[in-house]
């Protein structure tokens, strides 16, 4: 693979969006940045700007109000991009799936590449999801 393609896999900048999470999954996502898990060793940086992001990590359920914001953030990210749905809520709506204001999981609004189960999802599982997502991206880049 060329240097440019390799660098796309070695430098995933991650943007975290809290859709409608109870904050359980958010805390676990941020825990990945701490010295215990240290995701920076994979080149991962947590950025606050969708224009700089390669991976969108979404926690929590989608409702009619935040669905538009989620779409907006997704559309501002440059291609190729990955979406990771974190937690039972992000995957399917979790315990809130029958609530009247809940549309369901993240995949009701934007395409999701990797699902991370758990309530809340473990930091190890979130990191594993990013690595799995990068494997998928590698396949796409090699094929292109």
């Amino acid at each position, binding site marked *: 693979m060329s240097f440019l393609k390799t660098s*796309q896999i*070695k*430098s995933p900048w991650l943007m975290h969006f809290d859709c409608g999470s109870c904050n359980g999954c958010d805390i676990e996502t941020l825990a990945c940045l701490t010295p215990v898990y*240290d995701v*920076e060793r994979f080149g991962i940086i947590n950025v*606050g*700007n969708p224009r700089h992001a390669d991976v969108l990590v979404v926690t929590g359920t989608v409702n009619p109000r935040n669905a538009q914001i989620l779409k907006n953030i997704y559309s501002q990210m440059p291609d190729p991009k990955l979406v990771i749905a974190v937690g039972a809520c992000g995957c399917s709506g979790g315990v809130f799936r029958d609530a009247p204001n809940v549309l369901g999981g993240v995949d009701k609004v934007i395409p999701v590449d990797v699902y991370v189960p758990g309530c809340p999802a473990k930091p190890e599982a979130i990191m594993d999801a990013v690595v799995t997502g990068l494997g998928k991206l590698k396949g796409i880049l090699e094929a292109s």
Partner: protein
Amino acid sequence: MNLTTFYLAVAGLILAPLLGGLVAGVDRVVTARLQSRMGPPLMQPFYDVGKLWSKVIPPASNWQGLFVRWALVASLASDVLLAAGADVLMCFFVQAASASFVALGAFCGSSPYSKLGAQRELFQLLAYEPVFLVAILCMAKVSGAFDAYSFMNASAQPLLFKMPLIVPGLLFVVLVKLRKSPFDISASHHMHQEVVRGVYTDYAGRDFALLEIAHWADVVVVLWICSFLWATSVVSMVATAAVFLFAALVIDNVSARLTWRHMLKVVAPISLVLATANLLWLYME
């Protein structure tokens, strides 16, 4: 201009950005170790730039591409000037022009964070440029000329002994130029800050990659000028630059909550007074 100067200038043009990338890598590894983390690989900044280069995204404003390219040209030109032994004052002004182009590009964007970042970039210029200028004047006073080669072989005795008071000022310049401290500086190196990415917010894809290279070139210029303080040999110059870099990393890690107001109101005046006192002392000697 003779042929050797030409070769040196070309070497400066090619090596400076590479060295800057390496400095950025060392910075990230050392910072991680200071925080008891493992940190990314040394080559991570190069992967980051490669990644940004391969991302295609429409610019936030049509003017930005132009300003980014001018900023890159100015930053690389300042390295070339130093390598070719030209006037250090000229190099200083060209380097300041690069920072202004970045701010102008950010003003063209639509994001309020980008505009706020651009304003802070201008404040920042106001804070460190006078200190930097006085430091260069001190060096020129002792070495008797303004060209880089005179600075590098001024005397057997390192310049540092004649100008100890400019060290805090230079350290301040290194901190700001590395985009390290204060944490809410125009475009903090730390990705999460109160104005998202400040001046860099609206730049993305290839433009951002070019800006990153311009930043590396800037860092090399500043560290290079710092290394004039102990320019008795190449090894001592590299060691001096490394000491400045390491000191900046330590200060950044122990002062996580310094704000830009503190920089403007306290750090800038104190370091300017110290540097000016040193200059007066040199003139009265």
